[in-house]
């Protein structure tokens, strides 16, 4: 991949600034492709975590509709029912937009709370849609990965910040 740097103002190219968040989110979705075979869910939804990390770090980076495409990619990569992550992630992003719209003090702790709410919402939504489509599945198996996901959010947010520094580096 040739990264074309724009010489104007010495800024990294628009392509690079846009691609790194999107590609990192899709790689996060693709972590489930690693060939561990499990009979119960064991990994946190890394695609969602990275998407949330970017969204909370850079509110101006993505409009809410970007979550549609990221969610659809996640659905296709992980093999869940198409529309699951697409719907849930977009609703989550719209919700975060609502929170952003009210002026209040924001810090890391509040971002973590917001992300926890989002993770819980997506897990419940995924369970509900799975139940609706297939009519079965134990919901309790989602509890450990959901808690894991909540505790994984701060390191993932740091990872996004690292990637962000690299993304904007001259």
């Amino acid at each position, binding site marked *: 991949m040739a990264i074309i740097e724009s010489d104007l103002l010495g800024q990294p190219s628009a392509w690079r600034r846009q691609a790194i968040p999107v590609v990192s989110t899709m790689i996060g979705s*693709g972590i*489930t*492709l*690693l*060939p*561990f*075979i*499990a*009979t*119960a*869910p*064991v*990994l*946190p*939804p890394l695609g969602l975590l990275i998407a949330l990390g970017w969204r909370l770090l850079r*509110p*101006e980076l993505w*409009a*809410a*509709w970007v*979550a*549609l495409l990221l*969610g659809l990619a996640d659905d*296709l*990569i*992980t*093999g*869940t*029912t*198409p*529309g*699951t992550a*697409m*719907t849930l992630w*977009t*609703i989550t*992003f*719209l919700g975060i937009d609502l929170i*952003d*719209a009210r*002026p*209040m*003090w*924001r*810090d890391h702790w509040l971002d973590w709370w917001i992300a926890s709410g989002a993770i819980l919402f997506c897990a419940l939504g*995924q*369970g509900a*849609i*799975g*139940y*609706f*489509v*297939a*009519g*079965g*599945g*134990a*919901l309790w*198996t*989602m509890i450990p990965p959901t808690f894991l996901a909540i505790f994984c959010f701060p390191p993932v947010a740091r990872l996004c910040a690292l990637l962000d520094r690299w993304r904007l580096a001259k």
Partner: protein
Amino acid sequence: MAPPRHRHRGFSRRIQYGLFFGYVAAATGVVAGIALVLIARFDPAAFEGIKGLALDVTTPVTRLTRPIVRGGGSLADDIGGYFGAVSENKRLHAELADARRGLIQARVLAFENARLKRTLKLVGEQSVPIVAARIVGSDLAGTRRFVTLAAGRADGVSPGQPVRAADGLVGRITEVGSHASRVVLVSDGGSAVPLRVVRTGEAALGEGRGDGAMEIHSTTVGGPGFRRGDLLVTSGVGGVYPPDLPVAVVTGTSGEIATGRPLAEPAKLDFAIVLPQAPAPPPVAPPQGHHH
């Protein structure tokens, strides 16, 4: 810390319209997503093409990284194997002698069985396997239980075909790409398999629980019920699964319902065999006078 930069609404019409249409697009997309879920609910085969394509694109990643992960996972087992090797060797010798006796018995029975079938002019349904393929991965994050098989439409695989391993039934094909397919495990919440208890011949239904185990329901009223250690095989009722494939062993009972552990443990599987769909429900006769 300061509040974050909010999107500047300002007085620019262009920016306001841009924001507005962004939200319209997002809302439309949510509706479209819900529509997709509804379509998946009422027409499960609707997205076969696109999901098959996605499967073809993503499977090579899994296939290439598998040797690395396998190596790491089995290392601990290899080291652990050195300890207790002597006692294990003794135990295995005893088991082998036992198994040999059982095997001779089984050969005699198989011969007798074939002779009886010939006498009755029963045509045995010999299902010729479609393909044997490597299991390359599984869905690690969702509530559904799938594994990915490295064989697809090009190898003759199609949705609905049963998949077995050496130990027993693995599941059923749901999605097919041209070189990869997705298998829904018998322990998945959406799976149900008609079963038969080997000890009693009683009919049962095994439903996946989504957590690696199965829930076994008896379909006869006032039958002999289940016992711990009962072996369950497919009954072949209703087609799809050929009869007499080992499926699960009963690990616990509570009243009419039992819990079963699938015999083919997906985490330990390497290869699986895709079988053709059983076309018609074959007759089932419970074994007579064979209670142990």
